[in-house]
């Protein structure tokens, strides 16, 4: 253990002076211009350690292997589709500072859309040597292509990990490095220059097993409408229910759909569910997917 004797903490790139003279053990820190041994520990006895904050920038796609990959290798996506991402050679959480990887979609118009973030799965320790980064993390998760404002055409995914480090005994997380990777060559389905349909007033009431209950929505255009149902764990972890509840053309204006809480004639288990609705118009433009949660109680 160690204690902080005096600090001159700054979140700006620069120097932080920490006196460890009375204490034996402390974890590492970064050197510039590339990160070394994040998370490694070494012994330090009676030294005045100068910590360098910032500066370090990991080169894009650092390492000799894939940092970001789409499972299944699909390259064309319809708005609302899930993109199952996996990656390698990312950094794990450092000193309890969250280091999730933010995913952005850059569409053909150059606009960037945030798709959320995915986190580390587990670590691989290769024992490569003291000169290299020791702890690589695999990442994995699912993001969804947004609809509506995304311009169809070629697109790319950008993954950014801001590597933050908690200054001991300060509860301050400072960014010490930034890792970025790009996955190009994707394609967002749909025609260019056509206004996408809009879905409003989606109402999905709660229901009970064995009873039917309609849901309703308003669409700005006629189009092929799909309604997907997912069962949600307590944590929100979804299980998609197949087949789709609706997969057919519907007119513009107010629409309704009867639900009977069964799939294939079998009653759905009681619990929390999520409906996702999207529309593709005659020109091929997709609406932004609209989601609502509801519950199915015992009948």
């Amino acid at each position: 253990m160690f204690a902080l004797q005096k600090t001159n903490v700054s979140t700006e790139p620069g120097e932080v002076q920490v006196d460890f003279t009375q204490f034996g053990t402390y974890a590492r820190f970064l050197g510039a211009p590339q990160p070394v041994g994040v998370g490694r520990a070494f012994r330090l006895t009676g030294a005045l350690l100068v910590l360098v904050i910032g500066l370090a920038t990991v080169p894009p796609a650092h390492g000799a292997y894939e940092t970001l990959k789409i499972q299944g290798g699909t390259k064309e996506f319809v708005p609302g589709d899930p993109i199952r991402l996996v990656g390698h050679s990312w950094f794990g959480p450092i000193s309890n500072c969250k280091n999730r990887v933010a995913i952005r979609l850059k569409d053909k118009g150059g606009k960037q859309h945030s798709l959320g973030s995915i986190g580390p799965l587990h670590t691989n320790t290769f024992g490569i040597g003291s000169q290299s980064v020791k702890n690589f993390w695999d990442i994995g998760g699912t993001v969804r292509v947004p609809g509506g404002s995304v311009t169809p055409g070629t697109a790319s995914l950008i993954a950014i990990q801001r590597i933050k480090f908690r200054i001991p005994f300060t509860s301050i997380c400072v960014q010490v490095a930034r890792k970025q990777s790009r996955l190009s060559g994707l394609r967002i389905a749909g025609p260019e220059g056509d206004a996408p349909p809009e879905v409003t007033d989606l109402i999905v009431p709660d229901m009970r097993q064995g009873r039917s209950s309609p849901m309703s929505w308003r669409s700005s255009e006629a189009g092929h409408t799909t309604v997907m149902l997912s069962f949600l764990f307590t944590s929100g972890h979804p299980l998609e229910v197949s087949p789709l509840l609706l997969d057919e053309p519907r007119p513009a204006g107010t629409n309704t759909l009867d639900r009977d809480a069964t799939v294939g004639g079998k009653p759905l288990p009681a619990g929390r569910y999520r409906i996702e609705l999207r529309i593709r118009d005659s020109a091929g433009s997709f609406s932004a997917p609209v989601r609502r949660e509801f519950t199915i109680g015992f009948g």
Partner: protein
Amino acid sequence: MRWAPLAVGLAVLAALVPVAEARTTNLKTHSSAPQGVLSRGERIYVLAYNFLPRRICKKKVRFTLTDAAGKKYRLLRRRPSFKSRVEGELYGYVGDVPSTAAPGEGSLRSKQKCRAGRASGRVKTFIPGAANPQVASLSANDGVSGLKTRFAFEITARARVAIRIDYEFMPGDWREVSVPLNGAYLTKPRLYAFDWRANVDGPVPAGHYRATVETRAYRRYYGEEPTVFHKKTEDFYIAERVGTGTLTEVVDGQVDGGGRLVVPDKVRNDIRVFGATGTLLATFAPPLSAPKDVAFSPDDSTIYVADSGNFRIAKVDRSGNMTGSFGSAGSGPGQFSSSQGPQGVAATAANGGRIYVVDGDNARIQAFDPNGELKSTITGGGLNDPFSPAIAPDGTIWVADAGSNKLLHFSPEGMTLGEIALPRPFGVDVDRAGRLIYADNQQRLAAVLDSGGVQSAVVGQSFLSGPSGVAAAGLAGDFYVLDGTADQVFRFRVP
């Protein structure tokens, strides 16, 4: 001096031709296994660097595996990378360990050879003598959502082991929900125990789960399909706890037409109503003494309570007000045992409404109309100490008889239709699909028999202390088990 031009010529030539150099490539195999241990059939991944720069040599790197018998196996040829930070780095897959490789010590070589230079490296390898590791046995305990449940498995040789958890969302529709162990390297062939906290980001729902333990080869990154040597699966059930901390002593309960679980509390002398998600919705406190069981009128407006301390059936409305009662202590018609009172109650809409009351010490079941008038009495069929009644969708009556250790089946007229011998049945119910659910207090389990009488599931054996009642709910195989010893209520789902 006559040699001078030749010397100058040689010097010029030496300046033009790059000096042949020999480099060591620092070859390593890498995995979560100890360095150099390669199982047969396994993928080999390597890390090496310091290969010759591209300006000198564009040759690919050859990898060769030599087994303990000296036999050489040519693996893949790979081109090193010069873009990354380390010069001439080569990372990745170079081939599989042949299934015919002799066990024991061998070596793995990398070699990049060209006219101007040579780069090579070598690591010792060890190929275990045993065949590919197998999962010899696997057992999985039932568990409670959010709490630890234990899997025990045995492997026959050192292996990378993964455990996958699948969830049966609908009958036959299995979904992978968690991989709590992902390729951990276990070095000894023995029995291992693994505790899984039944969480997937948060507590998992009640249901039917399947644990799969597999021995497999190393995989480079998440998402890559690993080579699986062998696997075993075992099914188990996860239950959700209902009303934790809100119940002091429970015996039996029932689910009403709205899907709410109604449980009388024998010590607090009140009735508690829980929603489908387990939240406490209401507490009624009419004048009751040691209530043990409840039933509902066909329109759900009246709760019939086995008010055993007062030797009567109490009628309570949905606001918790007492609206009437019938019965008294004794052994005559319409009376209930003066030592135990009514033990259980069940109601049906048939014949203008019937309320079947189990009278334990008097070894009989009495049928009343909604006004409390005695209509019939069932005494035969080996009734000894009946505990809990249930009405099947076809109108027949099931009774858990703890005295004769049987589940007894009667027609509405009181004819014996059958019996099932069990160690000590305490609770019974029939769901809308006609499946019989019972609780066995001695074996500490609950079980489901399908409509053909075949046992389709046994649940809760690892954590139930003394189940005393069951209550079927919904259409998808949900039911509650009331544990009278632990005074807890668990919800199960058997799809």
